């Protein structure tokens, strides 16, 4: 178990990177608490797998350091870092039984037979695979195979961290939640630092204590699921997390007011900086209907079960609102009200309003 610190990490797949666009990872500085559950969230190609492989030692970063409990491990090969990794596709040794698969990492490290047996049966019990210990691993279903790959990581009691690289990709939807809760349970039992890479917000938000959102090789925000939802630091986070994502509306900003399609909107606090592309960001959950406010025309109403998503046009800009009752008719004129403490201005994507002190 260890604290993981990434310091000034940069990586490029090219031998001589020229500009920042040649870097798959740009300047990463993160510290992860010992025993925490973290998720790396971002769309495909954002660099999250690269980051994972750097932590596990399968890749050596172009620049920067990786520290486990303050000790520099940047130059160590994977087997000396005491980490475990679960891959997108289950990796099992076909010719071995489930038991032999679980024992393999211990055997390679010369652990004595008694300890191996004890650890394997413990892990098998945790994963509910005790009854399969003597079957050939090649015949198992994908979810059981994936469990075995996890088990191979957990069987060593000295692992610094367990990493998951989109581990639920090949699992049937109805088994996904089962495996996910199993993971959560395992995390509570073994208390290892776990890092979970995914492009699925539900997986990330349900698994992790803290989520690292990445885009184009950069960390855009680190925060708890609530923080990411309530106060996105970047329009990307606002848009990527939440369903539907945050409304990002072109506007002009001055002081603690924004001018959107000619209507004044009160913001959560004063804006700073100026110039650049200026947007107003507000989550659909915080757009309400009233007798006064910003006039809009409803274009579409979709019933998505727990609530309704209303699409509307304000001037030439489309936006969405979420409501549970008082549903307007498509085509009708309504007045929208933006919740001031949830209305923020973003300049070139980054947040540019200050939180009003309470």
């Amino acid at each position, binding site marked *: 178990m260890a604290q993981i610190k990434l310091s000034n990490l940069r990586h490029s797949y090219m031998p001589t990177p020229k500009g920042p666009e040649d870097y798959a990872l740009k300047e990463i500085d993160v510290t992860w608490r010992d025993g925490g559950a973290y998720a790396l969230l971002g769309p495909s190609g954002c660099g999250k797998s690269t980051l994972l492989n750097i932590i*596990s030692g*399968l890749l050596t970063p172009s620049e920067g350091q990786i520290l486990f409990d303050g000790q520099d491990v940047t130059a160590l090969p*994977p*087997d000396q870092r005491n980490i475990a990794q679960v*891959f997108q596709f289950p990796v099992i040794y076909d010719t071995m039984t489930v038991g032999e698969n679980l024992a393999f990492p211990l055997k390679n490290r010369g652990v004595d037979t008694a300890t191996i047996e004890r650890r394997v049966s413990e892990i098998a019990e945790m994963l509910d695979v005790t009854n399969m210990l003597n079957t050939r691993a090649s015949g198992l279903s994908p979810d059981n195979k994936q469990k075995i790959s996890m088990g*191979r990581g957990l069987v060593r009691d000295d692992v610094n961290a367990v990493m998951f690289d989109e581990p639920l990709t090949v699992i049937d939807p109805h088994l996904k939640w089962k495996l996910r809760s199993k993971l959560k349970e395992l995390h509570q039992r073994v208390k290892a630092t776990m890092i979970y890479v995914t492009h699925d917000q539900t997986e990330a938000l349900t698994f992790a204590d803290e989520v690292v959102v990445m885009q184009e090789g950069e960390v855009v925000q680190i925060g708890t699921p609530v923080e990411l939802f309530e106060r996105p630091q970047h329009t990307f986070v606002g848009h990527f997390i939440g369903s539907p994502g945050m409304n990002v509306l072109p506007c002009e900003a001055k002081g603690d007011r924004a001018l959107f399609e000619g209507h004044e909107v009160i913001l959560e606090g004063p804006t700073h900086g100026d110039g650049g592309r200026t947007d107003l960001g507000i989550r659909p959950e915080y757009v309400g209907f009233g007798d006064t406010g910003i006039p809009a025309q409803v274009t579409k109403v979709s019933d998505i079960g727990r609530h309704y998503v209303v699409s509307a046009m304000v001037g030439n800009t489309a936006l969405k609102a979420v409501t549970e009752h008082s549903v307007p008719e498509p085509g009708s004129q309504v007045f929208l009200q933006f919740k001031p403490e949830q209305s923020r201005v973003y300049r070139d994507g980054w947040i540019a309003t200050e939180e009003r002190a309470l």
Partner: protein
Amino acid sequence: MRTENQKAWFFVLPVLALVAFNALVPMMTVVNYSVQETFGNNQFFWEGLGWFEQILRSDRFQAALGRQFLFTFLILLIEVPLGIIVALSMPRKGFWVPVCLVLMALPMLIPWNVVGSMWNIFTLPKIGLMGYFLNDVLGINYDMTQQPISAWVTVIVMDVWHWTSLVVLLCYAGLVSIPDAYYQAAKIDGASPWSVFRYIQLPKMKTVLTIAVLLRFMDSFNIYTEPFVLTGGGPGNSTTLLSIDLVKIALGQFDLGPAAAMSLIYFAITLLVSWVFYTLMTKDDAQ
């Protein structure tokens, strides 16, 4: 999932007609000859299974069969491990991959009699590179036309030269199909290079290796042209493999009856061993 459809036979019909024409008619001719005796003039007499008995009991056939098995056994013993080793040490990607593949496949695209001639020229004492090197540089007494040992070594080295690449290419195809994650997982699990081979690479190569062994068995067991051009079966009968002996009897002595009986026995043995491989292979597929 494949669907049941008897009309599929129409798709297979052209293949069936072509192969049946080529396989069945000659096969019937062979069966016909194998049970008859002829003294020329197209007069035939019923002979029953006499030829089969005679062939199976003859020292000549047994000796040829023994040589054939020894040859095939040695070929597999050398080519399969060598092929695996070369495939394992080949680069996985990059500029050199196609270059390696093309160069390695080249021997297989040379007409078989040219392979024989090439090795003949290569091994001639005084004139050939290998013959000169062994005799005049290393001082080993090497003459394929005089010593059976030299002839055997040459025939085997020639086949290794000719066909090891088949094993290499098949194994290589198996190796490149292994996802990177397997190697990464093995690294993390602390597996030794031997464990990686034993538990990842070998199991993944199993199917292609079976195909390789099957093909190498069939082709080495049926080999004719290359050793015939190289040694003509000599010195003496030392490199007279089954096919060479068969052609000698059939076309040389025109003993049609015994030649036909021998053909059928020969074919039956090839078929039997291949069938064992085939069942092993499909059994594994079903799992």
